[in-house]
């Protein structure tokens, strides 16, 4: 396996951005390339992740190509997935030897609509979507099962640590948004995006003083049908963690893509994270959740923890689908 590192990242998240996706991605992509010291012509492969359903337009990613500047032509691909999966495609491309450097970006702008309703269209279109269960309602079903095993105080602790409320008392005073979930249990939706640069081996060392090396990356899928799943578990997260080698050594920092406090509790268990691991010091997806980008943002934040020297070994997690159906885990290490 070739050594590949994250060497630059640029991101922006705001509750509601007035700019279009192209407008807010132009400076982010430029910033990431500048930080790596690369022009687009020096980038071997470009891969992005986004969703037409959020943009409200078919082929929406074609417009965003203007933020990259595909003149002259570029080797490029796009996944209708969180950007973390675009990063996996780019990492695979580098593994084949066809590329030494890659630009990866993703973005989402959900403020013009109601994301929780839009996500109902992600369910089985024949049997479930016609009932229009929204994403909060499904998460509440899951939370009810999780609360059979953990206390409300544990959810409150996650909400406080993520900055959703300032104290347990404030948490408990909140009314239910979707019983048993309070507003503080639910991620704060943000518009935004992230752009990152990957580089292999010596190229990474040449362009970056502190490369965040990808030591393992894996992703897995679970069943979709809620009725066949144990909602207190995310088996695909555990499989991906094993595939990425999370348990091979101590983890200093874990950036988790949990859009509900209950899901962080599930993930800590599935990834085997103990008390020695700092969970989502950036605030995680709970503090600022950007559909289609939150997973790639976790990899950016884990990389930043390594660049700052806050972590020698960090784990980033991304998820997709109802109640964390699909999970990706990436292990990053510094040179020390």
């Amino acid at each position: 396996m070739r050594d590949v590192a994250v060497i630059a990242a640029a991101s922006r998240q705001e509750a509601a951005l007035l700019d279009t996706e192209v407008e807010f991605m132009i400076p982010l992509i430029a910033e990431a390339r500048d930080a790596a010291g690369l022009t687009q012509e020096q980038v071997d492969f470009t891969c992005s992740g986004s969703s037409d359903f959020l943009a409200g337009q078919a082929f929406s990613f074609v417009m965003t190509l203007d933020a990259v500047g595909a003149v002259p032509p570029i080797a490029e691909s796009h996944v209708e997935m969180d950007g973390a999966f675009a990063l996996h495609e780019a990492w695979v491309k580098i593994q084949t030897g066809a590329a030494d450097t890659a630009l990866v970006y993703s973005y989402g702008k959900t403020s013009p609509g109601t994301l929780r309703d839009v996500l109902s269209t992600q369910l089985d279109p024949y049997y479930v979507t016609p009932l229009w269960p929204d994403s909060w309602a499904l998460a509440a079903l899951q939370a009810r099962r999780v609360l059979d095993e953990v206390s409300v105080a544990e959810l409150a602790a996650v909400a406080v640590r993520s900055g959703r409320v300032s104290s347990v008392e404030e948490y408990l005073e909140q009314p239910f948004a979707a019983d048993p979930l309070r507003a503080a249990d639910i991620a704060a939706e943000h518009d935004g995006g992230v752009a990152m640069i990957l580089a292999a081996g010596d190229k990474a060392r040449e362009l970056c003083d502190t490369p965040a090396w990808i030591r393992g990356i894996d992703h897995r899928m679970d069943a979709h049908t809620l009725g066949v799943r144990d909602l207190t578990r995310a088996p695909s997260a555990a499989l991906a963690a094993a595939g990425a080698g999370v348990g091979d050594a101590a983890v200093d920092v874990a950036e988790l893509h949990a859009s509900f406090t209950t899901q962080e509790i599930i993930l800590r268990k599935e990834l085997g994270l103990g008390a020695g691991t700092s969970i989502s010091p950036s605030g995680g997806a709970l503090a600022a959740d950007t559909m289609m980008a939150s997973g790639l943002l976790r990899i950016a934040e884990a990389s930043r923890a390594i660049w700052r020297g806050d972590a020698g070994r960090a784990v980033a997690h991304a998820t997709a689908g109802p109640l964390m159906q699909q999970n990706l885990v990436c292990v990053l290490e510094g040179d020390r």
Partner: protein
Amino acid sequence: MGAAGELAAVVGVGMTKFSSTRGDVSMPGLLREAAMRALADAELEWDDIDAVVMGKAPDFFEGVMMPELFLSEALGCVGKPMLRVHTAGSVGGSTALVAASLVQSGLYKRVLTVAWEKQSESNAMWALSLKTPFQVSINAGAGGYFAPIIRQYMVESGAPELIGCMVAFKDRRHALKNPYAHLQQPELTFEQVVESPMLWEPVRYSETCPSSDGACAMVIADADGAAASPNPAWIHAGAMRSEANNFPGRDEVSPAASRECAADLWRQAGITDPRREIDVIEMYVPFSWYEPMWLENLGFAERGEGWRLVESGETQHDGGSLPVNCSGGVLSSNPIGASGMIRFAEAALQVRGLAGEHQVDGARKALGHAYGGGAQYFAMWVLGSDRPS
């Protein structure tokens, strides 16, 4: 030389019957029809598959957001990695190339790749006409977008007016030899093609692709898997390129991204004279005139001369020296998200000798080609009967 990374080959191909409405199957049923045929062809079981790569065009075509999620069980993805590719009309080709790269990276041994569209679930014209703020819509559909580019080609090349009709008639005749093809028009005459209504001048109704339901699947295996197969289609080269939709000086008739993609492809495959070295072509021709246009762009003819290959019958299955779209092509079957993969898969069938009635005798090297967007996304591969040297 050679495609990057480890050797990889197509060892299984499966397609559905294409038609305007596959009302007999659900979306999962449609995909399983193609996937199970590919597995049977490869003599493999679901458990043998290490990862799944799915592709399709816009989710609005079925009205399901990221449908790969609800298709997880139907495609045996539980516990496995799955990727969902979307690169406009080229997506079927790009999806195959992403699946190939999983094997070429040495990380996975056998990858199932599936591309599909079930246009009857929704309404493509609605899906393509959604209004977004601050953007001008030309409200012309794909045909209206490409018609002026085709007219530009006709003016530049001086091609006779009826070249497009010849391509359309040829591909509809080819479709009669492919039981999976959507349009089956044994009674169709050349005169009927010429007299069909003008939709987007100079593009006639009969020079346009249909709207289809359908899926296409392939199993791509590593060198060991290919060695165990009686008839692998070895991947000799694969390339993708994209360019912006609009910029000063853009050559819309012969896009630079496509020329560069083809140059990379021929370099990887060690091909110096594609006209002589490629035995059969499956290329993405949704509007008839794109056959001569791509033949020139890809290096099979000099610029402005591609139409002569059409006129002289060289691109016909019967007796042509450079048969193009023997399956009937996009002009005969167009489940949009799958259309690119069908080209890639037909190339595999040809070099495996499994194309049935539309087989080109002795085909050993084939080109699969797809494009999308405003002719700005490109995906191509070269397959061979022989293991790359």
